[in-house]
């Protein structure tokens, strides 16, 4: 028996056999490339930023001082508290707006809308996700800025409110899509059973569907947070880019990502400022990695059930 297979294999050293081999290697390379790239990026960012961590970084100052003055001639300081506060406040505000909106949209699309309405809404939500971030930033800069000045009678409209609104609108589509998938994954049997017990439509959604889809909904929100944390261009343009501990929604703020984007271009490769910016990169990488990993684990949680 085995000899037959062996000779058969030997006979099969033709084009098809080789193609099979090559495709196998290509698919394998494609499969692990994502891992290779992400490790490569991590290694690069760490290598560029680590000099600062080892040599110049004052850990206490780094995390507790709001003074970011890396180019000072007299005494450079590298405090990122104001930048952290900026990123956190913009992302937090964005979530405050986008979570109710996108969960509402997902429930409507998933549970109520039917036929054409449903399809049209889905396409529109996906189109919203396709708007480039620089266009969002442009809207913040040239439409929302004068609007906020007029409506709220404040000195300047480039602020946390502006950036948060823009970011909320940017994060909403991805959250809606994932949340809707999570709702759809709830078996129809649950709904039918609940309805058979005499539950109203709302009771079915609130008491049965949402608890069953909980993990997926949490994952949707976490991915939205990750999106908010990493967004750069729109935030750079709409936030005012001002080193400031925010006290209200009308205060201009500055995000970590925007700081890297604005300053890296003109630094001399390898000097302290350059390395400090890469250290910000390591921090951002770590935070988004943790957020995405958590979201992934939460999603895996549903599959296991």
């Amino acid at each position, binding site marked *: 028996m085995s000899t037959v297979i062996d000779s058969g294999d030997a006979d099969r050293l033709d084009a098809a056999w080789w193609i099979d081999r090559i495709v196998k290697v290509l698919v394998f390379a494609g499969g692990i490339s994502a891992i290779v790239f992400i490790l490569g990026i991590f290694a690069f960012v760490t290598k560029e930023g680590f000099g600062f961590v080892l040599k110049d970084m004052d850990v206490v100052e780094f995390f507790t001082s709001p003074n970011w*003055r890396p180019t000072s001639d*007299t005494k450079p300081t590298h405090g990122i508290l104001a930048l952290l506060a900026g990123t956190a406040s913009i992302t937090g505000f964005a979530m405050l707006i986008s979570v109710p909106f996108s969960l509402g949209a997902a429930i409507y699309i998933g549970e109520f809308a039917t036929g054409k309405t449903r399809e049209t809404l889905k396409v529109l939500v996906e189109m919203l996700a396709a708007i480039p971030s620089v266009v969002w930033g442009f809207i913040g800069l040239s439409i929302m800025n004068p609007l906020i000045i007029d409506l709220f009678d404040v*000195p*300047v409209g480039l602020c946390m409110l502006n950036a948060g609104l823009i970011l909320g609108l940017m994060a909403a589509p991805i959250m809606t899509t994932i949340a809707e998938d999570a709702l759809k994954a709830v078996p129809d049997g649950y709904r039918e059973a609940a309805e058979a017990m005499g539950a109203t439509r709302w009771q079915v959604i609130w008491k049965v569907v949402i608890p069953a889809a909980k993990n997926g909904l949490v994952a949707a929100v976490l991915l939205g947070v990750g999106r908010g944390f990493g967004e750069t261009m729109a935030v750079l343009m709409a936030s005012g880019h001002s080193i400031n501990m925010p006290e209200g929604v009308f205060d*201009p703020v500055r995000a970590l990502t925007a700081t890297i984007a604005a*300053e890296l*271009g*003109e*630094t001399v*490769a390898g000097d302290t400022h350059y390395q400090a910016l890469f250290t910000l990169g390591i921090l951002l990488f770590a935070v988004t990695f943790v957020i995405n990993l958590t979201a992934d684990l939460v999603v895996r949680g549903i599959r296991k059930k």
Partner: protein
Amino acid sequence: MRNIALATAMAVSLSLVACGGGGGDDADGGRAQRTLLQNKGSDTLVNVAQAWAEAYREVDPSVAVAVTGGGSGTGISALINGTVDLANTSRSMKDKEIEKARQNGIEPVEHIVGYDALAVYVHKDNPIESITFAQLAAIYGEGGTTKTWDQLGITVPGAKDGKIVRVSRQNNSGTYAYFKKAVLRKDGEYKLGSLDMHGSKDVVDLVMKTPGAIGYSGLAYATHEVKLVPVARDDGAPAVMPTVATAIDRSYPIARPLFMYTRGQPEGAVATYLDWILSNDGQTIILDKGYAPVRAPVRDDLR
């Protein structure tokens, strides 16, 4: 008839061949001798540098100048690494940078190629008539106490509570560094909390749309939609309006030099190019781009 046509056609094609051959030889000869100069740096200077490079093609076709922007810092690091012939900057090289260049066996030599007046911009409805260095320092500087327009004795229509919105630049721009040195003085620092724009034009655009705003940017970016404020060095000194003319005669107090750095004393093609930039023709081009030339070029429409 037919013969004539044929003969003409043959003659034309023959001459074409001859021309083509001749042209080809010339081009080959030119290519062999062609010198390529690398020119990189300041975004303030990049438009002028490009205009120079283009015009110079007519002056000396055997020299090509490749211009790239990226900022003063980018130009300087390229000079330190020895990858450019000329670095454009809107600030002097720091001692640390010169030291680094020397370690690589490069002696940077500074050449002033023009001046840029740093204008102070406010909203067009702002009634302010002039501003002094001390007032600017109190608005922008660390420890400065001026937070509202009322403190300067003026009321700006549309500015909520008279609050001054400070517009500044990102901390590694040459403009940021020069304004700091000139107005906030040597050990001065900016007060944090200004809106840090990422380009000369962005500053002017934001000031244009914000009633309570004040900003600084190159004079070349002035529009009719914003107001330029005359600046006085001291309380007693006359306030001078930023114009190309006041930048040329140095009466405007915040005019900064624009530099080109070479690797060692310029020689050969680099020297000829720099001489041409400082000549009447080269200086007319920088004037046309809205900057002040090193010397006033001989031209009738200047004042």
